[in-house]
Structure formats: structure tokens, C-alpha cells
């Protein structure tokens, strides 16, 4: 899609904003609507937009699919690790209050934030992977 100057330009402008907005949603899941999943979906959408505007080849140069493979695993890993850390700290699985932090509030906040980030990473990576695999034609 070389000729679609407009789409490309607008995408260039929008993509960073969409990405930041996604991260904003991630961070404000505790205060307002949103959370890891929504953030991941929005972030994924920004990459989908990139693919649509600039083509798969360019996108694969920019976003290595290997990286996304890694992130797919990493997200769940982070989530589960938070849970296991709580266990190591002496609580039940995912019992944030047992985390060795000064206040319970902070512990809870960090714990929730940690798992939200895990969700976010997995969702982003998976959605992008899904899109990559679905959209890419096999040229044979």
C-alpha cells in the first residue's frame, strides 16, 4: 500500500498515541475501567494498524515475531511468578498481602500491577501473533 499516503501519515501520528493510551489504560485499571486485557487489546490494535498501513514485511522488520513468541510466554510467566512469589513469601498463591513490602496497600498494588502487566504482555503478544498468522498469505 505504497500510495496511501494519508493512511500512512495518520497511522504514524496515531500509533504512538494509541500505544501510550493502551499503557495508560493498563496503569489505571485500579482507578477506572480497563486493565491488562483491554490494554493489551488496544496495544495489539496499534500494531495491527501498523501492519495495515505499512505492510507485513515492514512490520516484521520492526516487530520481530520471535520477540512476540517470547512475550507470549513471558506474560503468563510473570503472572504465575507473582503468584509463586506470594507463595514463597509465606502466603497462599496470589496472596499479595504476604509480599514482603512495607504496607499491605503497596503490596496489593504492586501485586495487582504485576499481574496486570503479565496479562497485558500476553494479550498483546498473542493478539499480534494471531493477526500475523491469520493475515499473512502464503505465497507459494
Amino acid at each position, binding site marked *: 500500500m505504497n500510495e*496511501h499516503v*494519508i*493512511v500512512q501519515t*495518520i497511522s504514524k*501520528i*496515531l500509533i504512538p*498515541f494509541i500505544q501510550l493510551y493502551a499503557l495508560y489504560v493498563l496503569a489505571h485499571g485500579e482507578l477506572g475501567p480497563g486493565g491488562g486485557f483491554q490494554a493489551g487489546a488496544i496495544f495489539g490494535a496499534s500494531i495491527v494498524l501498523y501492519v495495515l498501513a505499512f505492510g507485513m514485511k515492514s512490520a516484521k522488520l520492526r516487530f520481530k515475531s520471535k520477540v512476540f513468541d517470547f512475550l507470549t510466554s513471558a506474560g503468563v510467566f510473570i503472572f504465575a511468578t507473582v503468584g509463586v512469589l506470594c507463595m514463597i513469601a509465606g502466603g497462599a498463591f496470589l496472596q499479595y498481602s504476604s509480599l514482603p513490602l512495607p504496607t499491605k496497600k503497596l503490596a496489593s498494588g504492586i501485586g495487582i500491577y504485576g499481574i496486570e502487566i503479565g496479562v497485558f504482555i500476553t494479550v498483546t503478544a498473542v493478539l499480534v501473533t494471531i493477526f500475523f498468522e491469520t493475515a499473512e498469505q502464503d505465497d507459494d
Partner: protein
Amino acid sequence: MDIGTIICGVLLFIGCFFILVASVGVLRFPDFFTRIHPAGKTDTLGQACVLIGLIFYEGFDFISLKLLIIVVFLLVVNPTATYALANAAFISGVKPWKKGDKRQ
């Protein structure tokens, strides 16, 4: 009733009017290229009006900033989407309606 609310009401009225008219246009116009005119921008203006009305209602705070951001994005995104649509139709060979043609 303070002044913000009144301005808001007026702007809401104008915006809704625009939007309604745009919808009528979408219904009435004979073909795709003519329909895209009201849908693409009368709509946009109407929406901008409504949102700006809400800004006046809200006064100046973070929420109205957010509204403003929405307005800006709408103004950036809507014409692009309209363009994308028109372009898609044009490329795949939809002939623009000329005066005297049959309605589609």
C-alpha cells in the same frame, strides 16, 4: 442554571441537529459517493459540537481535557476513515452517480 449549561444545551442542540440531518442525508442520497458527504463530515461536525458542548458543561478540568482529546482525534480520524472508504469504493470501480442516473 449557569452559563456553561446553557451554552452546552445550545451546542448539543446544534450537534444533534447536524447528526440527524446527516443521517437523513445518508438515507436520502442516491449513491455511495454522495452518501459519504453527510456521513463523513456533517456527522463529524455534529459530534464535535456535542463534545464541545460537554466541555462547556464540565468546565475546565481533566475530564474536559479528555473530551478535547476525543474531539481532536475524531477530527483526525474521521476524514481518514472517510477517505479510506471512498478510496476503496473508487478503486474497486464503483461509478459515481451522475445527475439523471437511477438511484442505487
